[in-house]
Structure formats: C-alpha cells, structure tokens
C-alpha cells in the first residue's frame, strides 16, 4: 500500500479519536511524571504534539516535520533542565503508542497504518534521547569553561610582586589561560616579579614542567622575573628523577620563601616594629 495513503488513513483515524487518545495519553504521561508537571500542563504539551504528529502522518506540508522536531527538541531540553531522565522523556512519547493501541486493537485492517505510525513514534522517541544528550553536553562544556576561569586567579602579593596560585592539573589549555592572565596582569600592574605557586598542582611531570617553563619565558619577555614556589618534597624527587631542569629559574618550597626572595631582589627588607 502506498505510504502516503497509509499515513493519511492513520492521520484521519487519529483526528477522529483525538479527544479519547489525547486524554488517555495525558493520563499515562501524568502518572509517569509523578506530579512534577501538572496534568493541565501535560495535556497542553501533548495536544500540541498530537496535532503536529497527525499533520506529519498526513504529509500536510513540507515544514511540519521540521516543526515537530523543533517542538520535541524544546520539550526534551526543558525536561533535561528540570532533572528528568532521558528515559522518562522518551517514555512520554512512546506511551502515545500505548494509548492508540488500546483503541485500535479492535479496529481490524489498520495494521499497516499502525506499523507506520509506530515507526514514526519510535523515531521521535529516539530524537528526544539525542536532544537530551546534546543538552547535557552543553551543560558540561559550560561548567568546564566556568571551572577553568575560576581556578586561575592572579593576586598581588606586594607592590610590583604578583602571585599565581595554581590549583589542579596544568594541561595545555590551562597553561594558555594562565599565561594570558599572568601577562595581562603584568602589563596592568607593571609588576616586575611573579611567583607561580604549584602547591595545588598534584603531579609535576615533564609536560607540566614544560608548561611552567613556557610561562616563565613569556613573563620574562615582559621584563618580569619569575619564581616557582610550592615544591613539595616528593615533587622535588620526581623532578630530579625525570631529569627536568629548571635552569636559572629560582624555585622555593613555599610561597613565603618566594616572597622573601622577591622582596630581597626588590631591595626590601622586613624588620620587626
């Protein structure tokens, strides 16, 4: 049988039994959301979807498929944001099949129509899963960016002495960010000494050391001298065993030691009052 005729017949059937089907569908979905959405809200959403699905089956026009997709994506994203699992959202779509099936089981000769309809619903249900994934991916990526920004402050220790306390792993992305922030701050404050504290960096391997050396080189191009502080005993041993050379860059155990060195270089001395 011609696909469009099948679709048209199904569309007609759906239109004929609209109230009953939407009612039963609303019932099933409302139970599924466990009160997180009101029955009226559910009915409104489902009625809109129902109308679009019917039109898609009837191949009413070219745009309606896109419209249906867009409406479903919107629904899925909303559900994802409100903490629904993707299964819950997909089930909401799949229950339409259940609602129609209950009714159509008695009407003989509608098998091909129902099968085509079922296939459409399956596709739509899968679509909600995709939309959910995409929404979560977006949230994760936004959070990653926020975290990256959060964890690289540049603080002023003393006049002309700034510090960069690094927390967490130092990968290339982080290093880029640290370099940019440090250099911008050097230009803004005119500081001539920067202390890079790595107490919060869990492991220092050759890659991390490379990143640190790059950062120091860049700062030197802006006329600032750098000290690396926060070298823990185990880290020191690791660095030596890996054969990493810090060259002429001063390294200290603590931020306090680095500050003392920087003050000394600036020709300052701390005396008791």
């Amino acid at each position: 049988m011609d696909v469009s005729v099948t679709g048209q017949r199904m569309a007609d059937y759906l239109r004929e039994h609209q109230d009953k089907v939407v009612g039963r569908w609303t019932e099933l979905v409302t139970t599924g959301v466990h009160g997180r959405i009101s029955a009226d809200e559910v009915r409104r959403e489902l009625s809109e979807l129902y109308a679009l699905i019917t039109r898609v089956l009837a191949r009413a026009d070219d745009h309606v498929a896109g419209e249906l997709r867009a409406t479903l994506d919107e629904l899925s994203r909303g559900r994802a944001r409100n903490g629904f699992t993707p299964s819950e959202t997909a089930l909401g779509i799949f229950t339409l099949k259940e609602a129609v099936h209950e009714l159509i089981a008695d009407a003989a000769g509608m098998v091909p129509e129902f099968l085509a309809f079922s296939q459409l619903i399956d596709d739509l249900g899968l679509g909600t899963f995709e939309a959910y994934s995409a929404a979560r991916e977006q949230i994760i990526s936004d959070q990653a960016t926020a975290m990256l920004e959060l964890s690289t402050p540049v603080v002023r220790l003393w006049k002309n002495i700034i510090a960069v306390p690094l927390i967490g792993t130092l990968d290339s992305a982080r290093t880029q960010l640290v370099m940019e922030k440090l250099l911008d701050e050097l230009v803004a404050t005119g500081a001539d000494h920067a202390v890079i504290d790595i107490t919060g960096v869990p492991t220092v391997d050759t890659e991390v050391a490379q990143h640190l050396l790059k950062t120091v080189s860049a700062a030197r191009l802006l006329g600032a001298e750098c000290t690396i502080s926060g070298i823990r005993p185990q880290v020191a041993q690791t660095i030596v065993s890996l054969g990493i050379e810090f060259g002429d860059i001063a390294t200290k155990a603590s931020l306090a030691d680095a500050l003392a060195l920087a003050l000394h270089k600036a020709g300052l001395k701390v005396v008791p009052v």
Partner: protein
Amino acid sequence: MEQVPILKIGQTLFVSIQIDLQDESVIMLQEDLANKLATTGARGVIIDITGVEIVDSFIGRMLSTIGSVSRLFDAETVIVGMRPAVAITLTELGLSLSGVRTALNAEKGLEILNGKH
C-alpha cells in the same frame, strides 16, 4: 616604504615601531641604527614594540640581529612594550630573543640601561 624614526635621548637611541614592518623597512632600520650608533656613540638602544600586534620568526630574527649589531658598538638593546599575545606567540614559537633584554615599558627599559653604566 616607511622609514622608522630613531630618536636620540641622552646616551640612548629610541626606536618606536608603530607599523607592520616589511622586509625593506627592516633592513633600512638596521642600517640606520648601525649608522646612528657609529656617529653618536650611544650606549643603549630601546626598541618599543607596543604598536606591533603580530610577531613572527622574521621579526624575532630582526630584533636579535639588532641586538647583535648594537653589541658590536658596545651598546645594549632593550625591547619594551611587548604585548601579552606577542609574548605568548614568541614563547610558543620557541624564539628566545637571545642577545636582547626585555622590559615592560620604556621607563623600565631606561632603568635597565642606566643601571648598567
């Protein structure tokens, strides 16, 4: 072809690069600088690259060359005003700009030169 002006302030030659340098301008600058160093006997050169937005290995080599030439005239070169983005690029490219000092701005550059002699 633009000629980059060279100013003499005391014992220091001051060059401010405001435009994107092309090959010929660079060669002319190097020649002008060498001439000026020879005639004035200046002890220091400050090259202000605040106006330089993009630096590649060519510019990097130019700056190193100027440093080497200056040293032959017993003058020290200080590059000042490097932009953060430029510093990052140079570091990524692995250009160490050997033979020249760097400072944040002209004032600090002068401090370095005066501290020397």
